[in-house]
């Protein structure tokens, strides 16, 4: 039994105390003296030429400080893209400028045209009504295949077409894969869509810009998952502010799910405008604004082909995907359908030959980027759907077909460039079948049938690559940043500890779980340890939280820094104990000389470090503070088996999720309570995608799902209680904690399990239905049954 506050304990979260009493400090809770309010005026057409903007009437309105348009941003850089993908022919992707405010053209509904800054938000909104903006609407391209037609309207006039890149992976395998598919015993083919989603963290984005004329220092308070990344991108590429004059603070952040990774125009605007008008500038997104300005997720259209021999052994896999980039390239957009998607197409299987083709396409829609899972849900969905379809076509049980092809020896180098270090896929599959009472399914199905309902069971097994990532590797793949993480461990004179981490918590509970790791290592109470994050003026340069990387990369940095602390503390202890350093043992916050009863407490050593009266000053500096930067040797590879049981009402097509089980292998676990909560949330988002969520545009580029009236967020009564398990543990081999990460798994494994379950229910009832695109709304299910 782990001790409370140490590794492996379900320690209750310290951050809950402020959140439960209304004392959290979110960005919108920050109000600066003499602050102004920004109101963005956004395009209501998907594509158009801006003929003129007349702001004189608006500027004359009460309380207006200034109206900004693109001409105020001449000489200011565009919002940069952080990843350059190279296409099949060795050419760089097409990369259009993304201006802070629209220059000459608007390219999606929500594209910002002008900003009114006033004493109050109401004054800014009132004055915006007086802006005269003359736009000639142009034809819009919304469908990706239409956008690639010869003569299609171009989203960017200065690009050769709407094709961002045509990526092939692994290009050298292309012919061999074609050959293998041609000669195979059986090929299963599936065409499917991965529906466009909106991340929808419950806290809308907020930015507050401030400028201090006395020091020439800019401060941006923002709802970000990675304040250092924002400082780097905005300072270096947009506004030309050196790092030492730019502080970015991301305080309590109300959820991210990817949408708060990116650098957004509104952040640059508020920072820029605060200096321009000499007053703080605050912008708070409304939810409707969020739908048309937060980066969207998914939106892939794929054809996948799986070739097998007569025993169902996978021989080759070929995919052809169109990935929507939207109108501009968001920060990490190009990497999602490529390096976070193509590299996962082996899944859990020994398929020897794989070729992935991805065409990334510009359309007149909101930019698309990472959303929880980012590329890996798209890979898992198509793979686990085609495996299920293959099982039916081959007459092999879906569980058995998966087992026949599972990778069982590790490390395993896939044909798509990554090397899995550990895993035990049979173990997670066994666990899933047990916890979902697979053996009892037939009896339950008979019961449903007696009640006039169709019951189905669906399975998916996933792999993901987390803990992004080795910097030298991602550099070769086009990343314009390193992906290490940092930590500073500052031990105070009395022995308490402040840990400054480059990771960022926006719901993950790092203040609790990170403290558990240091508490375990040092042996002092976790309450003596504070975790500091979210402020570039306090924490070392860090890359932030996304891709389930916090504990695997940020936690490892913290471990490395703590090891340095322990090493130095042992040296101090050896001096105090007049023993050789090699004889010093450190356990439970006490240093002892091996084989003796001589000891010195943690607090005595820390005090000596800061009051060095009896201290080896000639050998060592005083003080006890260490920093580590950790650059991982590989990705981590969590995996798991997910099972979903559904009931379909044949009269209406309504699907009810009766049960959902998740058996994950996350490696070692720091706080099981937090891990389970992460899985629950991921499952809800994955079930939401499969059942009800859909970001829809009409063919003119109008956003049809622009509020919670139209975009179906999962509510409490849409979801069942979940069964989750993480007892199958194969520790990661290359990080000090043996951890893999758990943040995205739920959203990755659940959509294919759910769709597989519905197809199972329909096929058991004799319907020749092999696929239904998500979300599985009653009308789609009913139409599939009755077509």
């Amino acid at each position, binding site marked *: 039994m782990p001790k409370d506050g140490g590794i492996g304990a379900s320690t*209750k*979260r310290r*951050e*809950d*105390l*402020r*959140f*439960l*009493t*209304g*004392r*959290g*400090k*979110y960005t*919108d*809770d920050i*109000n600066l003296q003499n602050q102004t309010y920004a109101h963005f005026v956004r395009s209501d057409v998907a594509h158009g030429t801006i003929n003129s903007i007349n702001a004189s009437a608006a500027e004359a309105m009460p309380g207006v400080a200034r109206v900004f348009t693109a001409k105020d941003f001449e000489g200011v850089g565009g919002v940069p893209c952080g990843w350059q993908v190279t296409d099949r022919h060795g050419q760089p992707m097409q990369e259009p400028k993304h201006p802070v405010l629209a220059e000459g053209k608007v390219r999606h509904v929500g594209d910002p045209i002008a900003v009114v800054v006033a004493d109050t938000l*109401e004054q800014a909104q009132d004055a915006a009504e007086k802006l005269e903006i003359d736009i000639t609407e142009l034809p819009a391209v919304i469908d990706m295949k239409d956008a690639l037609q010869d003569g299609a309207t171009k989203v960017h006039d200065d690009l050769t077409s709407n094709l961002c890149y045509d990526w092939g992976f692994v290009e050298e395998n292309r012919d061999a894969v074609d050959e293998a598919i041609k000669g195979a015993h059986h090929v299963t083919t599936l065409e499917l869509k991965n529906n466009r989603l909106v991340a*929808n*963290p*419950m*806290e*809308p984005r907020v930015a507050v810009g401030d400028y201090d004329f006395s020091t020439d220092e800019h401060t941006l308070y923002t709802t970000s998952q990675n304040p250092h990344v924002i400082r780097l991108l905005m300072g270096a590429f947009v506004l030309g502010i050196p790092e030492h004059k730019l502080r970015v603070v991301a305080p*309590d*952040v*109300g*959820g991210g*799910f990817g949408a708060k990774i990116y650098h957004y125009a509104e952040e640059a605007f508020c920072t820029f405008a605060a200096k321009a008008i000499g007053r703080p500038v605050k912008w708070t997104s*409304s*939810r*409707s604004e969020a739908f048309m300005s937060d980066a969207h997720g998914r939106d892939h259209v794929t054809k996948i082909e799986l070739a097998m021999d007569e025993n169902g052994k996978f021989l080759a896999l070929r995919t052809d995907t169109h990935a929507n980039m939207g109108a501009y390239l968001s920060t990490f957009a190009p990497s999602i359908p490529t390096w976070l998607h193509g590299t996962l197409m082996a899944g859990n299987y020994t398929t020897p030959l794989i070729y992935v083709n991805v065409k990334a396409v510009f359309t007149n829609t909101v930019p698309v980027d990472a959303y929880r899972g980012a590329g890996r849900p798209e890979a898992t969905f198509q793979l686990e759907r085609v495996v299920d379809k293959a099982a039916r076509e081959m007459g092999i049980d879906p569980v058995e077909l998966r087992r026949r092809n599972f990778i069982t020896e590790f490390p395993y180098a896939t044909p798509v460039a990554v090397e899995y270090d550990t895993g035990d896929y049979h173990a997670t599959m066994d666990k899933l079948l047990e916890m979902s009472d697979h053996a009892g399914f037939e009896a339950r199905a008979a019961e449903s049938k007696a009640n006039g309902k169709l019951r189905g069971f669906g399975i998916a097994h996933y792999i993901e690559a987390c803990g992004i990532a080795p910097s030298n590797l991602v550099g070769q793949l086009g990343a314009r940043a390193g992906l290490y993480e940092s930590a500073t461990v500052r031990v105070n004179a009395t022995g308490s500890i402040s840990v400054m981490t480059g990771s960022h918590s*926006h*719901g*993950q*509970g790092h203040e609790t779980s990170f403290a558990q790791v240091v508490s375990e290592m040092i042996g002092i109470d976790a309450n003596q340890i504070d975790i500091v994050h979210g402020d570039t003026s306090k924490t070392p340069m860090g890359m932030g939280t996304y891709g389930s990387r916090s504990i695997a990369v940020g936690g490892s940095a913290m471990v490395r820094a703590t090891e340095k602390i322990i090493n130095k503390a042992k040296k101090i202890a050896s001096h105090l104990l007049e023993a050789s350093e090699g004889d010093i043992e450190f356990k439970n916050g006490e240093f002892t000389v091996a084989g003796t009863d001589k000891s010195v407490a943690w607090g005595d050593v820390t005090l000596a470090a800061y009051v060095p009266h009896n201290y080896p000053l000639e050998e060592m500096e005083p003080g006890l503070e260490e920093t580590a930067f950790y650059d991982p040797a590989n990705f981590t590879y969590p995996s798991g088996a997910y099972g979903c049981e559904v009931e379909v009402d044949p009269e209406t097509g309504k699907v009810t999720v009766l049960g959902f089980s998740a058996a994950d292998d996350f490696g070692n676990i720091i706080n099981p*309570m*937090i891990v*389970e*909560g992460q899985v*629950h*949330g*991921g*499952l*809800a*988002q994955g079930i939401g995608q499969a059942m009800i969520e859909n970001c829809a545009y009409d063919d003119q580029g109008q956003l049809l799902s622009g*509020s*919670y*009236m139209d975009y179906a*967020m*999962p*509510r*409490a*009564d849409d*979801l*069942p*209680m*979940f*069964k989750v398990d993480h007892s199958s543990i194969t520790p990661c081999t290359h990080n000090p904690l043996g951890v893999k990460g758990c943040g995205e798994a*739920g959203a990755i494994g659940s959509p294919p399990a759910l769709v597989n379950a519905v197809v199972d229910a329909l096929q058991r009832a004799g319907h020749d239905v092999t696929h239904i695109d998500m979300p599985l709304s009653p009308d789609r299910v009913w139409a599939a049954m009755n077509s």
Partner: protein
Amino acid sequence: MNKVSMTVNGRTVSADVEGRTLLSSLLRDDLHLTGTHVGCDTSQCGACVVHVDGKAVKACTMLAAEADGADVKTIEGMANADGSLGVIQQAFRDYHGLQCGFCTPGMVMSAAALLEENPKPSEAEVRDYLEGNICRCTGYHNIVKAILAASGQQVEAVAAE
């Protein structure tokens, strides 16, 4: 501008507000009670739920002027007199019913209103009552458990897990 007066968390307050000022704005901007959150603009998400004269109300959907003379309770008024967590707050912490914390104030206020109306709700009744509160982090699993626990029921007996 109109002058409004009301009791908020037992304290009498007054403020000058425009006719269009929402109760959520009055609480957040004038009274600096920033625990009441605004997560949408269509009265869907429930992050802003407060109690007005004992009833759960979405503060983004009520004008400040409408609350003139009312007794208002917000998340800041939910702790015990000694500052310790109230029963519902404690259950949310014990059962990990919150992650990012943004929907949490509204969830706690809705839960309190539910248990006032229905002291021993079933799992289905809890889920049904939370129709107007959206959480993106927890999948509701632990919120449902927390509310059942706060009602004094054996969670495992009531929640089909």
